[in-house]
């Protein structure tokens, strides 16, 4: 197949005819039309996009208030928590089943709204709970706590009594976290609020041969368990689960599980 067309002795074009076809305005117009605006070019989107992402990421990282604690916990809710002076050095709420909301502080106070999954409304007298029994926001996040938004802005704390979402088991006022073995053994039993008394529980601990689970009747901590705790469980967690409690009316309920970390 022929690659080219060939023409012999074509009539040459006059220079004047070519000059008449010059149209510089058309060139200018077309050039302006063909020009891509800077904000449409890839060179704009690359650096600007990266800068925007960097700014957003740094803004999020530099502002601690923007931390996401939980899918269900909004910023305003998290900000409301310090107002109730919730923190946890010693006592946090922890549950294998899921959720709890709050532990009383030393001063009885009205907590406006703290709603928890599987909510059981009750009032707890705060005398049995340690001063340090406070919640950290992180703990709330871990526990997947769903908190209703606080409608009034700052929390006022004038009230004597504090409403607690659930009946709380504790040993020497400690529900969860670090507790000395001596405290466990001197208390010798699992206490409970709201007029409930523990009637049985499972305790998972290390008996020297490995992790074991004992079912205990009553609220007392048997002396052999106490001895094992002293010997083998300092620094390793002890779980108290399936805590069944009963009140004076004979109503039974399963309480939240406890996670303790025995120390010297």
């Amino acid at each position, binding site marked *: 197949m*022929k690659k080219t067309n*060939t023409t012999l002795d074509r009539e040459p074009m006059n220079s004047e005819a070519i000059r008449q076809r010059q149209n510089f305005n058309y*060139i200018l117009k077309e050039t302006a039309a063909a020009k891509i605006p800077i904000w449409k070019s890839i060179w704009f989107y690359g650096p600007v996009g990266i800068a925007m992402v960097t700014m957003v990421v740094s803004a999020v990282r530099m502002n601690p208030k923007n931390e996401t604690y939980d899918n269900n916990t909004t910023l305003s809710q998290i900000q409301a928590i310090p107002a109730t002076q919730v923190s946890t050095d010693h006592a946090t709420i922890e549950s294998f089943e899921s959720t709890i909301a709050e532990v009383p502080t030393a001063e009885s106070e009205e907590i406006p709204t703290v709603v928890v999954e599987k909510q059981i409304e009750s009032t707890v007298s705060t005398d049995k709970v340690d001063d340090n029994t406070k919640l950290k926001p992180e703990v709330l996040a871990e526990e997947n706590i769903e908190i209703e938004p606080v409608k009034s802005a700052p929390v006022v704390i004038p009230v004597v009594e504090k409403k607690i979402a659930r009946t709380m088991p504790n040993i020497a006022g400690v529900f969860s976290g670090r507790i000395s073995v001596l405290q466990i053994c001197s208390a010798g039993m699992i206490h409970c609020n709201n007029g409930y008394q523990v009637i049985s529980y499972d305790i998972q601990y290390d008996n020297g041969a490995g992790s074991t689970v004992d079912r205990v009747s009553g609220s007392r901590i048997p002396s052999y368990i106490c001895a094992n705790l002293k010997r083998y469980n300092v620094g390793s967690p002890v779980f108290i689960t399936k805590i069944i409690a009963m009140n004076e009316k004979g109503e039974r309920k399963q309480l939240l599980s406890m996670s303790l970390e025995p120390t010297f």
Partner: protein
Amino acid sequence: MAVNPIYHQTKSTLLQERDWISEAKKDPERFGPLYTKYHEQIFRYVYQRMDDQEQAFDVTSQVFIKALSNLHKYEFRGVPFSSWLYRIAKSELYQSFRDRKAKRTVNMDTVHLINITDEFDDDDLVEDKDKLFRCLAELREPDLQLMELRYFEKRSYREIGEILDVTENNAKVKTFRALERLKKQFLK
């Protein structure tokens, strides 16, 4: 063989061209003198390789639009601005062939054929112009281009080198080899 004198410029005209370019980089409307100066040259280069006159004018306009759009990339290297325009023209020309699925055209004059046969240094070969015409049409594209630039458009080797982005010597060697191939084809 006499060469086309348009391409060759004095140092002062080259410097003036450089000034026009730097002004046009700031204000596109200052590109006017360059357009006026080179429009005919570029059109003739394009039309030499095309059948359709209107199409040739369109491609020429496209060359200047491309040149003006990309003027900020142009660097003055002491050679006429037209060498850059010719490279754009070549690219636009082939783009046009692809777009229209058209074939490239080789426009020859009898005078051009005589110029080539003069180079053969053999009087017996001069007679068969039709055969030479056919052989030229069958040349490979790079060889045909060199023949066009040198013998049809009467360009100097320096200009050919600048248009094809090769050295003057390389242009000379390539043209000589192309001529040899044409001669070989012609003698078959």
